[in-house]
């Protein structure tokens, strides 16, 4: 890995990483909250399920683990983004719910009830 020797280097790297991330936005992205609370509620199973199912169905997607989003009451939680759409948050995502989300929200492109409204603003 290259050493970063200046802010200029860092900016270049950041811009490169950002455009790579934008490319990812052209596909389905599933972020699974994987902190202690999420894992304790079964987030690891949920994540594995998404990886396998999306792979089985040959859906171009990335499944990413993240930290806690703060919706502890609704763990496991995921943030799901589809190309051209605002990301949405689902709670209580066990494997059954995951299947439903894949079939209905991702594949059939239907609306799904039970989306948790984003209740905060972030700085970036």
């Amino acid at each position: 890995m290259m050493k970063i020797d200046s802010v200029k280097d860092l900016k270049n790297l950041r811009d490169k990483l950002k455009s790579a991330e934008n490319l990812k936005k052209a596909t389905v992205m599933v972020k699974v909250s994987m902190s202690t609370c999420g894992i304790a509620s079964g987030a690891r199973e949920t994540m594995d399920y998404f990886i396998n199912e999306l792979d089985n169905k040959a859906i171009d997607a990335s499944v990413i683990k993240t930290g806690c989003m703060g919706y502890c009451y609704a763990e496991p939680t995921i943030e799901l983004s589809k190309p051209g759409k605002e990301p949405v948050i689902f709670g209580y995502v066990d494997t059954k719910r995951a299947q439903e989300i894949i079939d209905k929200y991702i594949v059939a492109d239907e609306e799904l009830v039970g989306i948790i409204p984003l209740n905060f603003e972030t700085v970036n």
Partner: protein
Amino acid sequence: MAKLKKQIRIALRNCGFINPENIDEYIARDGYMALGKVLETMSPEETIEEIKKSGLRGRGGGGFPTGLKWELTRKVDAEQKYVVCNADEGDPGAFMDRSILEGDPHSVIEAMAINAFCTGASKGLVYIRAEYPLAIERLKIALKQAREYGFLGNNIFGSNFSFDIEIRYGAGAFVCGEETALIHSMEGLRGEPGVKPPFPSEKGYQGMPTNVNNVETYANIPVIILEGADWFNKIGTEKSKGTKVFALAGKVNNVGLVEVPMGITLREVIFDIGGGIKDGKKFKAVQTGGPSGGCLTEAHLDTPIDYDNLINAGSMMGSGGMIVMDEDDCMVSMAKFYLDFTVEESCGKCAPCRIGNKRLYELLDKITEGKGTDEDLFKLRNLATVIKDTSLCGLGQTSPNPVLSTMDNFPEEYEAHVKDSKCFAGQCKALMQYIIEEDACTGCTLCVRVCPVDAISGERKMAHFINQDTCIKCGACMEKCKFGAIYIG
């Protein structure tokens, strides 16, 4: 919609958005840009000035101005200085520091490097409890990746500033979160607090100047550097700037982590963000500041939350635990719960805390058993005040707070326990009575058969009654009765 967005995420800005095990995702969100900016364009003095101007105060409980602490450490002349991250988080019910380390470890690493540059330290230590294995693992990965890019190590950003971080493990003692005890623990000594002054900023780890800050305090730093102090200090109240992360727990619908601007009211946090009280019950109180804090009531719901208002209301900000209680919670039992915790966690160094808290606990226990007297209420208050005044460290100085604040806010509840042997919330078992409603009782004798201690007597087909002296309050009879004839009085 506007109503829902009561939260502003600064410390939690990346939690839930990036993969904490991949430094590139942090960099894509301007990670390490603040460190670069400081090293390339700012002097330590200018940086400290910026932090001072932001108004940031310590999020670990005390609320000490962060910029001032850095300046104090900087001013001491020494060959070696240290910066420490306090990730002990011992307050029961609090988990915001863990979430930050698990969700965004790089923000803490970056801030520690900035702190070291400002104070003149070359070594950083993260003191984290061994009970946080996932946070430790992610922190280790993050440290490794930061070294690979050269954000830690020698000549960071091509400057002559060198810095690295090591992890130190705590065994999970509440008192080790106190900064002097924490330093002793890192030195391999007993985790007992020492006398201040000298403060760690003068004489800390290995006798060298040491700047101790909390995880959440650190997580704010990169944003302040990048967005500017003037951006930050517009959020919050006059004396408390920015946001605070709370771990909302207890009888609220939406248990979880929230980050809200200082100055928000408890009502907004509990009812708008927290979704109100579970099962439509009535709000009774909220405990902030954990075992060191106090309870706040209905009367405080519209008080803007900041360091000073909470202290004036008889509680404190603490590290950010917020436990909501409803009508089924007994305030005497609640105070007893926290005292139980303090008795366990006192290091035992000084008598008022070691012995006094135990006595406080016993008095509370006596009251919940229905054996308290008026004199006990007087003793309780008296002893609580003495412990506060004569303990060495913050643990003992604040441990009676839950007792005092519940006595102040719910005097009638203490009186009822003592004078009428009644617990309004129905939580104190010893004060409950299972009573058979004569008119409703058909004399089916079912209860007689389930009672484990033969406390129930009566003729077949006639009303039964319960001998209160024998009854052990197991509730089996009430559960079995098909006619709803048994109630708690």
